[in-house]
């Protein structure tokens, strides 16, 4: 026993010493060890001294909402100072299963401390407690939590069937019976197949009391959206997920609780609205006007022109304004027709539409810029606007009055036919093949091989060549013959002359004087002509003398020749005055043989 006492006192002493030296503790805790997926919980690390450089654990398996945040508290109790530094996170798990959170590290006075590791059990998202009763009405849907329908969200839609393009409003409302509720998270749904416009909520939206199934709830709208269906068929209104922090009274656990009026517990409650759907009807095809441009609702239509009197070439504005309630932002420009003399530009579109829970209303205006190209008076319009009225379930057409436009001719305006606007060329409506030929110029045999390289071609190509060669040969022949004759003549000049002399000799014997001299004369001229290749007609005494000199005939022979010629001429004109025929004959023979010797 004594020994034991000693031990205890020793231990007490030791521990007091330790305490005096401020034992440092660094530990981690979680607010819950069992959580569901997506449920928020707190992870905190505390150290009982001041420290620095906190290194948090790996939290990749969680969604971190906040943290690490830190709080530092100092208490002075019974003369003892206690300090506490806490780092905390708000987390939610992503996946179900057992998750361990690793150690965090902290630096204290140069020493690194490690915290404990933590185990966490994560169950599936939908806790059994949150799967309450489902209520489904025609236009509302709600999912409530397990605490006796104390908190749920309902979606309200203004109509469950709508035409394509007809605006529908959806409102998400929270129904609550808890005294204190705070939103912790709202997931905004996305609407597929709709054109959406957010409707502003009342800023100071206080809760409104509403009774559902005999139970009074405080309601609060959390989302209001205008939906314009863009597709036909069953379109889904998605659920809205929200988590709330609910403060619940718990049974008093201690005497102090009872004195202080009980204690509360904050719990997170996840609720979601149940999905709804809208049946979107197509616009009736029967009687659908061709100029329908997508307007669904109730509209009025107004057309105005910036001016009605202007000059050709000046611009003016035609304003088409559509006013009313419906899918006003989604209306396409109405088709308009204007005379071809007026140049039309694409419209400028302005819309001034507001969205409220009653739908979309306002106006849309189309400004068409137009430029008249020529002077004159034009009537433009009447313009028409066609829309679908979902209440009357029929197409409506509104016509405006026509606008009369007086256009003055501009200074340099040209006659209509010369304007560039009208010179647009032929407008092709359709293309077709060109029509058959009606006349055949010429047929050729099917197996025709063409003229080039045909027999005929070669023949015709050779023909000129043959003609050329033929002509050449002929010419050569002709030339040869001519040349031969001259040669012969020269050679036989003496021979011919001798023949003539022989005849002259016979004439001399018969005593025919005139004929004798004639023959001698001819013999000499003929001989000289042949000898020198000169036509007898060209033979004059000068020519003969020249030729004889060229032939280097001696003067004695020349003189003899001219003497004979003189005698012959004289004998022809005065036959009695001439010497004897014998001498003339003799001289002539002598001259010819003399010349022949050369």
């Amino acid at each position, binding site marked *: 026993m004594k020994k034991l006492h000693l031990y205890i006192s020793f231990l007490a002493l030791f521990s007091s010493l330790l305490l005096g030296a401020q034992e440092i503790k660094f530990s981690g805790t979680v607010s819950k060890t069992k959580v569901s997926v997506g449920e928020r919980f707190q992870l905190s690390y505390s150290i009982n001294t001041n420290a620095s450089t906190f290194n948090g654990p790996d939290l990749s398996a969680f969604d971190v909402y906040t943290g690490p945040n830190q709080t530092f508290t100092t208490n002075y109790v019974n003369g003892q100072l206690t300090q506490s530094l806490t780092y905390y996170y708000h987390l939610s798990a992503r996946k179900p299963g057992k998750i361990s959170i690793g150690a965090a590290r902290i630096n204290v006075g140069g020493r690194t401390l490690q915290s404990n590791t933590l185990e966490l059990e994560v169950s599936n998202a939908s806790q059994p407690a949150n799967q309450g009763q489902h209520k489904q009405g025609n236009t509302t849907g709600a999912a409530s939590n397990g605490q006796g329908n104390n908190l749920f969200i309902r979606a309200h839609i203004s109509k469950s069937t709508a035409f394509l393009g007809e605006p529908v409003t959806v409102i998400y409302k929270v129904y609550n019976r808890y005294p204190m509720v705070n939103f912790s998270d709202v997931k905004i749904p996305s609407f597929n197949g709709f054109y959406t416009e957010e409707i502003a909520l009342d800023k100071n939206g206080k809760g409104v009391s509403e009774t559902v199934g005999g139970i009074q709830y405080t309601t609060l709208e959390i989302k209001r959206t205008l939906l314009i269906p863009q597709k036909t068929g069953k379109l889904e209104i998605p659920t809205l997920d929200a988590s709330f922090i609910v403060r619940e009274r718990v049974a008093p656990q201690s005497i102090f609780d009872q004195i202080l009026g009980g204690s509360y517990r904050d719990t997170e409650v996840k609720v979601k609205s149940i999905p709804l759907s809208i049946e979107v009807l197509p616009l009736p095809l029967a009687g659908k006007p061709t100029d329908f441009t997508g307007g669904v609702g109730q509209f009025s239509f107004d057309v105005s022109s910036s001016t009605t009197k202007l000059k050709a070439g000046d611009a003016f504005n035609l304003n088409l304004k559509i006013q009313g309630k419906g899918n006003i932002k989604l209306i396409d420009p109405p088709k308009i027709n204007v005379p071809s003399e007026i140049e039309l530009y694409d419209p400028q579109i302005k819309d001034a539409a507001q969205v409220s829970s009653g739908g979309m209303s306002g106006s849309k205006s189309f400004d068409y810029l137009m430029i008249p190209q020529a002077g004159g008076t034009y009537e433009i319009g009447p313009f028409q606007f066609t829309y679908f009225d979902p209440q009357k379930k029929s197409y409506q057409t509104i016509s405006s009055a026509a606008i009369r436009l007086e256009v003055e001719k501009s200074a340099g305006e040209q006659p209509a036919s010369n304007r560039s606007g009208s010179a647009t060329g032929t407008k092709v409506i359709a*293309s*077709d*093949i*060109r*029509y*058959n*030929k*009606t*006349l*055949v*110029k*010429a*047929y*050729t*045999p*099917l*197996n*025709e*091989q*063409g*003229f*080039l*390289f*045909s*027999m*005929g*071609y070669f*023949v*015709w*190509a050779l*023909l*000129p*060549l043959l*003609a*050329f060669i033929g*002509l*050449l040969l002929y*010419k050569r022949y002709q030339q040869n013959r001519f040349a031969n004759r001259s040669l012969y003549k020269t050679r036989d000049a003496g021979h011919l002359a001798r023949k003539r002399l022989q005849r002259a000799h016979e004439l001399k014997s018969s005593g025919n004087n005139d004929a004798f001299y004639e023959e001698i004369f001819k013999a000499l001229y003929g001989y000289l002509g042949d000898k020198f290749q000169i036509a007898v007609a060209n033979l004059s005494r000068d020519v003969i003398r020249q030729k004889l000199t060229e032939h280097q005939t001696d003067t004695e022979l020349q003189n003899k020749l001219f003497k004979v010629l003189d005698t012959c001429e004289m004998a022809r004109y005065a036959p009695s005055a001439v010497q004897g025929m014998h001498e003339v004959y003799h001289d002539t023979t002598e001259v010819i043989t003399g010349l022949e010797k050369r």
Partner: protein
Amino acid sequence: MTAIYRIIIVVFWLGLSIGQNAFSAPVEKLFDQGNQSFLKGDYKNAALNFEEILQEHHLKSPELYFNLGNCYFKMTDYPNAILNYERSLKLSSGDEDVLFNLNLANKKIEDQIVAIPELFYYRWFRGLYSMFDAGFWAVLTLILWSITVALGFVFVLGSTSTLKKAGFYGAIFSLLMSIGVFALSWASHRASYLQNEAIVFAGSVSVKSAPTETSTGLFLLHAGSKVKISDQIDTWVKIRTADGNEGWILLSDVEVI
């Protein structure tokens, strides 16, 4: 001009071939009947009439092929329409109506082959020789050749030096001209008479890398496409498309223009 050289051709032909007489009355009757059927919308009979001129009378003309092409076009038989338009163009290259209709028909077929653009000088050359048909160029060559020979004659036998000079230079010039015109004539002749083009008639044909059934299919051609034939081995022909792809297909898959 055409009249003159047609007369010249006729004279040339008359000198050499006998029996090339003008087309006979039955042929003209068939042609008119074809056109009348076409007008009534009876394209099938119209085509039969035109085909008869080709098959029975063994006569052809650009107009005949053109009308036949129109019949097939109207019957939506575009490969046949293209074939006949191409045949018409072979006989009268550059005919605007034929080119127009051929262009339309080519838009109707599956393969829209974009031709590799020709080099500009080849385009000019083709534009030049397409101005007249092959017969005209052949005759013109002969005329220029004859002039060359005549001037050569003047050169050889000219009695004065001026005459000789004129003959000499004239002959040289004329010879160069005739060589040039001969080139045009040859090109035009090839375009008109060389059967080196064909139209694909098989609905869809795989063009092979070699003239065997087992070789790799390189690309697909569809009915109506025009190809150039560059070689033939047995029943296979080597073809080349306008965009430069080459390969082998069966001769039976194509119809030679």
